[in-house]
């Protein structure tokens, strides 16, 4: 794929701890994928071609023009790849919710490696494991050596691992937004480094439902109410994340009568999704009595962390105070950092 493309930009697409949905969404740009192939040489993309990390290692620093990196950093191998691709790329894009804010797998930061191993291997209800074996980085089988990457205690975002140039939000980013971002990159019409490439409005601004004055006496869980299909879901007591969530999807979930779950991350100018969402909810609670407010919250929001930080826990203000670089603890050989890039 790299032949005859001396004048074209070099594009890399990589996945770390992710589900594959980002790749599906990239392919959903359909026939425009040919325009991408016309503009870029794809030099690295494990899902479609046989280029290996060692080939990337051999490249000069900053040889890749744009790297779209999806997935969070959960293992030593993923950290290695993040550092390597940072060093080799001029522009590194945290692609999708996992890379940008940790996404749903980032909820694992409410627990740790040992608890996860207990749940999956040692005390799992369908696992027979009398020796309480767990996967380990080095094993000997029949005299041969098998290795696995180290599973970290903490999920980190790409931006907590290396310096990120741009963020493309969404779980996954919607295909038209991917295309817009690629066009912006091709035309060099990019916002300042470190920015999110996305809308400045919220999901509420895209939502066709009618809004009146929001005043709520009780929050409802989705299984407790069949909402009216035309009216604002938050006004009906459902914890719709529309007010705190960046626009970009076209309010898809509210259109099938389901509340927004916040997959597009905090709206423009907001650092912490949960803080924004809590502020939005506080303003609609129809009470001035602290006891009643307490009751409304206790009854209607039984899992505040999982509700307000469903997609953004790893990146949020609630993140673990001490983010010990796992690589240091595990003596991982890291690629030499280029100047001013790695963090």
């Amino acid at each position, binding site marked *: *794929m790299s032949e005859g493309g001396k004048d074209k930009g070099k594009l890399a697409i990589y996945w770390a*701890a*992710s*589900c*594959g*949905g*980002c*790749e*599906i*969404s990239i392919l959903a740009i359909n026939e425009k994928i040919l325009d991408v192939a016309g503009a870029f040489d794809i030099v690295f993309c*494990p*899902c*479609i*071609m*046989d*280029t*290996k990390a060692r080939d990337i290692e051999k490249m000069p620093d900053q040889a890749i023009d744009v790297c779209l990196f999806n997935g969070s950093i959960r*293992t030593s*191998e993923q950290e290695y790849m993040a550092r390597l691709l940072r060093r080799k790329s001029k522009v590194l894009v945290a692609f999708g919710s996992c890379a940008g804010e940790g*996404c*749903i*797998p980032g*909820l*694992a930061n*409410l*627990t740790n490696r040992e608890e*996860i191993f*207990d*749940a*999956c291997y040692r005390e*799992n*209800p*369908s*696992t*027979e*494991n009398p020796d309480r*074996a*767990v*996967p*380990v980085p080095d094993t000997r089988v*029949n005299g*041969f050596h*098998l290795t696995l*990457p180290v*599973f970290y205690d903490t999920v980190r975002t790409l931006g907590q691992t290396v310096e990120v140039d741009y963020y493309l939000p969404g779980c*996954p980013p919607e295909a038209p937004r991917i295309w817009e971002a690629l066009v912006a990159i091709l035309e060099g019409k990019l916002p300042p480094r470190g920015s999110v490439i996305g809308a400045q409005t919220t999901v509420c601004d895209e939502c066709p439902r009618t809004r009146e004055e929001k005043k709520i006496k009780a929050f409802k*869980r*989705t*299984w407790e*109410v*069949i909402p009216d*299909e035309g009216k604002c879901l938050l006004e009906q007591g459902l914890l719709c994340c529309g007010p705190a969530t960046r626009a970009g*999807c076209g309010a898809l*979930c509210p259109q*099938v009568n*389901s509340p927004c*779950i916040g997959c597009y991350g905090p709206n423009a100018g907001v650092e912490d999704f949960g803080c924004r969402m809590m502020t939005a909810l506080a303003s609609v609670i129809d009470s001035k009595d602290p006891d009643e407010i307490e009751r409304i919250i206790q009854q209607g929001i*039984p*899992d505040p962390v*999982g509700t307000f930080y469903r997609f953004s826990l790893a990146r949020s203000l609630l993140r673990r105070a001490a983010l010990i670089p796992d690589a240091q603890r595990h003596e991982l050989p890291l690629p030499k950092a280029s100047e001013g890039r790695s963090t």
Partner: protein
Amino acid sequence: MAGKHVTIDPITRLEGHGKIDIFLDDHGDVVDAFLQIPELRGFERFCVGRPAEDMPNLTSRICGVCPEAHHMASAKALDALFHADPPPTARKLRELFYCIFFATDHTTHFYALGGPDFVMGPDAPKEERNILGVIRKVGMDIAGKVLKMRADGHGLIKMIGGRAVHPNWALPGGVSRGITEEQRQEIERLGRDAVEFGRFSLQLFQQIVLGNKEYVKLITSDAFTHRTYNMGTVDAANRVNFYDGMIRITGPDGREHARYHPREYREYIAEHVEPWSYLKFPFLKKVGWRGFVDGEDSGLYKATPLSRLNAADGMATPLAQKEYDRMYEALGGKPVHHTLATHWARLIELLYAAERWVELATDPEITGKDYRVLPTQTPDEGVGSVEAPRGTLTHHYWTDERGILTRVNLIVGTTNNYAPINLSVKSAAQALIRKGTVVTEGLLNKVEMAFRAYDPCFGCATHYLPGRMPLTIVIRSQDGRAIRRIRRDADGTALETFQ
């Protein structure tokens, strides 16, 4: 032990990448082969503490390629947990959505991933053995049909479930929104196209594959045959069903080993842990874990399209039933243990999914307004199960009385087949590496074909252009030095370098 160590890395994803390690003895013969899964995310732990109703949205993030399967298994677990039985319209809408997903997913696999080996032939020039080669051979007309089938499916999934990736639609007791008569007509129209597409695909398979004795020989060869147990979901008449039913397991001889409600899965299934992989190895509890061997005394089982057909007595739709009979007649009766026949079974399932899609789209209840009931009982515990394209998928949740999760257990599609895939990889390696002689192109192709038949989810991403499984095989001396490297470029060219 002297000898060499062959590494194939990466073979792409399940939850991340996969890696194959092949060990040779000092004669250069294969001692063992291991398919390692080097990643874990820990859903079973971090979902604890979350509201149960979030699970269809949380667990769809296990896999962005088949989120519909997790969304649906999760919703069914919630039906049980909240004691909320969905009304008939809701059940039918879910099954309709699910059949559309199945037909779409199977199309992708057959034409882009598994198909090129067959359509082009395993010994066709390597640069032809990909989706582009398929298009050249069968013509743009057919390529257009494939693309239409996929685009139609994805469009309908978004129309019904709200989103093309990660739907937000199913709830305990039903779904969040029904369909209009106008939508129903569109679904029916595209469903009829899908039936024609399914028939056409089977004709193509029979014409190209079965018309060639070499293919039939390959399908039935020892290297691709494993006599294991088979698992699948069946309806009351023991016919294949993807959305609901009883789990049926048949033995290597075809006799029924078990037939149980999905909620009883722990009486029949257990999982084994090996320290060299993050993925566990399910096995039949009553037979027991005997390691990586097949046969009656080993608890290994497969849960694939072929397994579902083996474990059932037939198909519930007329055209698919005809094709079912035709396959078993051609391959010498039930059960069939030839891994490569999984591709044939997958096309029969595609046709069934399309026929069932039309049946449901023309059901008078499908546009009903009664698509949801609200739970009234205290939530406690629930199991939900569907057939994912890659195997039986089980979600099991426990909650407190507020519906907050206290425990979660998940056995996902591909996991069922993890041990058999290891067996298949080892057999292929043994057949192709003898006395240290590595058959370059043969090893690449046939090791690939061995696990590609399962459509393992770590192969998901390779569904796309150029449709090749990217591979590098490194042969190392015992001190770890790479002495020979075989790789294939994106266009299918194999390159070999000595170092």
